[in-house]
């Protein structure tokens, strides 16, 4: 008897708990969960991403990834939100794990971690949430439910190096890196190789800012480089590079006749180089070394939607896969036509495999473009 009473009480408590729990959540959500769940798994393939602290308006890496997700949503007719595609921004390094977990718990079919900083978090969560699929950009994670997306940054940087070498008149070129990590090393190596392929006598001054979000440091480095007679600077430093653009714009404004050039990275940064001098618009950016995170994100989302998720594999996007490239050349550059022919020529060689660009400084030593 006692036992039965206890059982009754227990089930009452449970029932009350369920009802109260249901009250806590919004009504619509419940309906969606009950009625729409099946439909969701069959029809909509939902995708989400976690940004690092830069956020989706960083004019660089995260923004590009978010544009890729938006393009995916547009193509398959999904809207931003829990039933389509969405992103979460991290406020600190400690948030990556929480954010990735939240998205997996919200049953997004594929969750992207944007940037090598999320390597540890993805590895750990992929092991815990085995029936969810993840992808990470710029890092290698070997788990059966994770796809690692890598880029041949060296190929884009190589082309940027070719453009820089053709544009310089002082034969002095600068490179500003964010942090000394493998990704940036690929940029540096490719860039140096590209410069040397055009003219081995050109010197490349390399400096690292130590951070991706310190525009003021970028500006200081750019200022000292320009004053040393360097006339073209390429950056692979995310937000730090905005300081380079500011310095280039300021110098151009002061001395409109001076040759001051910058080269952007990740996405087409042309808009950052606009200066107005005496009512006329000028631009200090020659071109940008593109890293099409957007293409890669969209491509993998579509593949996964089609049931072809290459879990456990690493996909490397290079020039041949339209994963990297070079933005259009600024028409203010005197040698524009020259640059374009050289870039087209090298691009073909890289595409058909005649030319393999080195990815580490070690490999660069034995590299020759001939």
């Amino acid at each position: 008897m006692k036992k039965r009473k206890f059982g009754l009480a227990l089930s009452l408590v449970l029932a009350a708990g369920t009802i109260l729990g249901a009250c806590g959540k919004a009504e619509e959500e419940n309906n969606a969960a009950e009625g729409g769940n099946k439909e969701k798994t069959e029809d909509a393939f939902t995708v989400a991403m976690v940004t690092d602290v830069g956020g989706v308006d960083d004019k660089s890496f995260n923004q590009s990834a978010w544009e890729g997700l938006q393009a995916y949503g547009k193509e398959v007719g999904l809207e931003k939100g829990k039933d389509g595609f969405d992103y979460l921004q991290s406020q600190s390094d400690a948030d990556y794990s929480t954010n990735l977990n939240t998205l997996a718990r919200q049953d997004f079919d594929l969750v992207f971690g944007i940037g090598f900083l999320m390597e540890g978090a993805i590895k750990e969560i992929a092991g815990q949430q085995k029936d969810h699929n993840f992808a990470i950009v710029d890092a290698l994670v070997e788990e059966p439910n994770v796809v690692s997306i890598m880029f041949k940054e060296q190929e884009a940087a190589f082309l940027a190096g070719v453009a820089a070498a053709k544009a310089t008149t002082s034969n002095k070129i600068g490179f500003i890196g964010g942090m000394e990590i493998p990704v940036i090393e690929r940029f540096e190596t490719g860039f140096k190789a590209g410069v040397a392929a055009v003219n081995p006598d050109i010197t490349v001054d390399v400096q690292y800012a130590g951070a991706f979000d310190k525009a003021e440091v970028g500006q200081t480095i750019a200022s000292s480089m320009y004053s040393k007679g360097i006339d073209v600077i390429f950056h692979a430093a995310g937000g730090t590079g905005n300081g380079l653009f500011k310095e280039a714009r300021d110098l151009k404004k002061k001395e409109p006749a001076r040759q001051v050039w910058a080269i952007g990275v990740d996405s087409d940064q042309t808009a950052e180089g606009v200066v107005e001098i005496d009512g006329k618009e000028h631009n200090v950016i020659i071109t940008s070394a593109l890293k099409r995170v957007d293409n890669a994100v969209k491509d993998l989302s579509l593949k996964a939607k089609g049931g072809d998720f290459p879990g456990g594999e690493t996909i490397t996007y290079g020039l041949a896969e339209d994963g990297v490239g070079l933005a259009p050349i600024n028409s203010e550059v005197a040698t524009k036509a020259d640059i374009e022919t050289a870039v087209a020529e090298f691009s073909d060689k890289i595409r058909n495999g005649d030319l393999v660009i080195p990815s580490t400084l070690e490999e660069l030593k034995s590299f020759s473009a001939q």
Partner: protein
Amino acid sequence: MSNRVKNIIVPIMAVILGILVGTIIMIVTGYDAVAAFTALWNGAFGEIYYTGEVIRQVTPLILAGLSVAFAFRTGLFNIGVEGQLIVGWLAAVWVGVAFNLPPVIHTLVAVLAAALAGALWAFIPGFLKAKFRVHEVIVTIMLNYTALHVTNYIIRTVLSEKSDRTEMIKETATLRSSFLEGLTDYSRLHWGIVIALIGVFIMWFLLEKTTRGYELRSVGFNQHASHYAGMNVNTNIILSMVISGAFAGLAGAMEGLGTFGYASIKGGFTGVGFDGIAVALLGGNGPIGVILAALLFGALKVGALNMPLESGVPNELVDIIIALIVFFVAASYMIRLFIDRISKKGVK
């Protein structure tokens, strides 16, 4: 109304006012405030996983809050918690990576190393203040940057080969446990919360129940009177900074041995040290107050991450609310005046 009651009412009023003004901002900017707070709540306590994450976030906040509160109770303003935390983080991970020790002992050694590192880092401003009367605020702020860049250098050159992070600490040194993970559905909750609560007890016991604590507080109230009473002012100043720094170092150990399990090169500050100032301020520099304030801030921070997804409200709004709460605590004179008015009317 007694002063004691007022001391409790002021922070509560500040929180209510902060949330109220935050709500007004949401309504004015066209966001759904109810949905936002629901999302905030669900993101902090909606699932056991999130509750685990809240406690994980609260752990270093309690210790950072204790660090600030301890210094404040002894008349010092320790802005260097952030730097001491980073140094403690590095020390804990260093021990965790480089040593081979049996399980529990390894963790304890790593935790003690963090406390020691934080204490040493705080010794510098304490010493300068005691010997040369250099203001501790300026020295601690500068040492924050020094700590950031020195640890970055050590991680890059000594603890790794030009990599951006160290190896994972050895299993024997970790504060994490599969038991707690299983309990909270794979959250990163770790045993550090126990250390934080022990820290709270130590602070209370030291300040309120020992002669040394009495001296420390006394020096904070009035150096000259304490000196006249025969206390060694300089020793007490240094000791106060060192203990404060040890708490901050422990907060770093929580991140290094619990949350992350490694130390990585940082482009900027973690922010935990600075949040500690807000926690201490809201908690009225008392041990229980610090726990409650850390719990509030931790829940707000973790819950905020869920807001954009569930309600479409940007999570920066929580930063605004936190800032407002700090503002109202700082402007507590206003609230006190208001309470006085009300209670006087009641008497009439």
